[in-house]
């Protein structure tokens, strides 16, 4: 008999007033009993709508069936057929708009907690299974992957499983891309990312760090060097600013800089060699997941007041509902329908406040969201000593400017054929934020997967 409870089994978590003072993971994960119990909520309906809601089409009911039986390793083997990074996706995927949004159980009550089960299965495997995956027989073909974020790692993993000799080039000193520099430890522990990368290395994937493609080697040189195809997954790394007065004062960060200092350079640790401002009152401008991450990091660094300043209303917040909820529980204040107009500085050049103006929602704009309009005369000053701009990023222009014949959109995204990820250059594929602009981990993984399939076909047909 299926478990007919209308609610998901709750995720055990650190209490809000405890976790907002440490960088340890917020969610603690299901126990075996909780996982089996939750898995029994799946009705195994015939048309499996959840699978279609997953960008990498994990065989969701199949793995859940194994969890229900207590066969956790079998469940893991089903997931990894489709996903190279299950422990990551189980944590950071927006399941509520993907697989879980299609779940039949969600019609009346809550959907099956697919994300939490995926996370449980991946963690169980990592804790219990020590043997490395079998290295596939090499097929003698070399592929280069530029960038070791979610799209690059997925593409590399899928090709390695087919026997390709894959080298991943990473510009930073650590592989993982946004998974290590962007998403904080308390949401995605770095040890988990490292484990996923180690599994790829066990499959034969080579990872070369400190390699800025476009500078030390160009895409053309990679092709001349004997790589038969190149996948570009270089992300959307360049932060945007608002272009308001005071943005270059000391104490104004891009979210990328703030998060990179905290996550990649570990400046939250006392003995870190990389400094960060331990501000008392922080304003984070923006309403996406990155804004939530930055705000929650600032709180953990000891800020007394942390504000999310967002120009639209709560309904339009682009962040996942769960992230907004977590942020609120941890004591982040939401200043909605407010927009910064300038940042004020003290005599010594540090931030001393941020002037905002109240907004109201007008007619819907091109994005379908109601356009925020300033309320005349409503300016006020928010008392802060640090401002973090989390208003988006755009693709780094380096690869475009050093690769002849690579077409991009006006805003910098690489133009690709949607079904294959093929760019305007033969043998050169791209995916992830470098193509779409800032999006989610799982969409980037989907693009990496699509490209891997296309690259395999391209190389096989070339023979």
């Amino acid at each position: 008999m299926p478990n007919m409870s209308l609610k998901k089994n709750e995720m055990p978590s650190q209490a809000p007033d405890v976790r907002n003072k440490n960088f340890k993971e917020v969610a603690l994960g299901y126990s075996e009993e909780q996982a089996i119990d939750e898995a029994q909520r799946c009705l195994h309906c015939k048309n499996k709508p959840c699978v279609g809601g997953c960008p990498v089409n994990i065989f969701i009911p199949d793995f859940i069936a194994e969890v229900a039986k207590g066969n956790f390793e079998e469940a893991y083997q089903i997931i990894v057929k489709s996903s190279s990074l299950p422990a990551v996706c189980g944590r950071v995927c927006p399941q509520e708009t993907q697989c879980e949004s299609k779940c039949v159980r969600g019609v009346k009550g809550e959907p099956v907690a697919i994300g939490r089960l995926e996370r449980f299965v991946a963690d169980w495997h990592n804790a219990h299974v020590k043997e490395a995956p079998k290295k596939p027989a090499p097929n003698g073909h070399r592929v280069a992957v530029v960038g070791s974020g979610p799209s690059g790692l997925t593409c590399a993993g899928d090709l390695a499983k087919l026997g390709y000799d894959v080298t991943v080039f990473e510009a930073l000193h650590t592989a993982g891309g946004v998974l290590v520099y962007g998403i904080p430890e308390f949401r995605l522990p770095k040890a988990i990312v490292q484990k996923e990368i180690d599994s790829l290395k066990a499959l034969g994937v080579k990872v070369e760090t400190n390699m800025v493609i476009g500078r030390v080697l160009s895409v053309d040189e990679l092709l001349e060097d004997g790589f038969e195809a190149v996948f570009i997954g270089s992300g959307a790394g360049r932060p945007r600013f608002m272009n308001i007065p005071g943005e270059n004062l000391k104490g104004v960060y891009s979210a990328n800089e703030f998060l990179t200092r905290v996550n990649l350079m570990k400046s939250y640790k006392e003995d870190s060699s990389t400094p960060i401002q331990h501000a008392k009152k922080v304003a984070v401008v923006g309403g996406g997941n990155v804004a939530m991450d930055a705000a929650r990091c600032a709180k953990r660094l000891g800020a007394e007041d942390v504000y999310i300043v967002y120009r639209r209303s709560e309904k339009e917040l682009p962040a996942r509902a769960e992230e907004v909820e977590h942020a609120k529980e941890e004591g982040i204040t939401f200043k909605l329908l407010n927009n910064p107009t300038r940042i004020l500085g003290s005599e010594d050049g540090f931030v001393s406040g941020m002037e905002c103006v109240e907004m109201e929602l007008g007619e819907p704009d091109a994005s379908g969201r109601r356009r925020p309009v300033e309320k005349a005369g409503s300016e006020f000053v928010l008392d802060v000593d640090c401002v973090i701009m989390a208003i988006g990023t755009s693709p780094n222009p380096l690869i475009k400017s050093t690769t002849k014949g690579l077409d991009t959109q006006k805003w910098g995204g690489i133009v690709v054929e949607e079904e294959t990820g093929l760019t305007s250059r033969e043998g050169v594929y791209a995916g992830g934020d470098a193509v779409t602009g800032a999006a989610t981990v799982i969409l980037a993984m989907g693009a990496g997967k699509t490209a891997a399939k296309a690259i395999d076909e391209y190389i096989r047909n070339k023979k």
Partner: protein
Amino acid sequence: MYKIVKKQPLNPTVTLMEIDAPLIAKKAEPGQFIILRVDEDGGRIPLTVADYGREKGTVTIIFQIVGATTEKLNHLEEGDSLHDFVGPLGVPSHVEGLKKVAVIGGGVGCAIAYPIAKKLHQLGAEVHSIVGFRNKDLVILEEQFREVSDKLCMMTDDGSYGEKGLVTNALQSLIDAGEQYDEVIAIGPPIMMKFVVQLTKKYNIKTVVSMNPIMIDGTGMCGGCRLTVGGKTKFACVDGPDFDGFEVDFDEAIARSSMYKPFERHAHEETCHLFEKEVR
């Protein structure tokens, strides 16, 4: 890992190192920089490429001991290795087509100015180098500059070597003597570059400066190195490090560079303290 194949102290606080990094050595051009980490938990610091041996596969860096990372770096010896060494980053200096150039280096900035002077010399340009130091003990690269310069003005603040005065005094004299330059290239502390620009603006001589702000990744990702150039925000790591000196907001750049001064001072003291303990 990237091996140190040569280490040479240039003065009590400035050291030269040649690092084994063949791929970077193949591509590096004057004006570009690298980012290094000494050890696994180390900070990332940008240093300009002072020279490169395409065949030897080495990249030369010259650094002043100013903080924890450079202190640690200076404690490494030939044969030791750096944990990370990435580059070449930034846009190379534009030197093509210049006929007569004044190259100005201030202090350790001479390490950046030298490869540019050398490249100009190789391209057949007339190079007048003006180098400035606080005193005689701090002079670096004098011979190297002499070899690639048609004229060399050595300046010290206290007159203990060369002429007493600032680099701007030397430039003023050359201009007064009727020298006409296509371009002035000035590299040194921001305050020096600011004053060079004040002078060259009067005579409308195009002036290029090389900015070295605080940065982390060096690939355009963090924006920590942003500065205002011609009223627009630019990233020194990918849009520079060379900029039109007339357009740079030096006061803002100087303010921004002091963001972490207390932390850096403290970290440096701690590191020195650690090394002292080791010696005992």
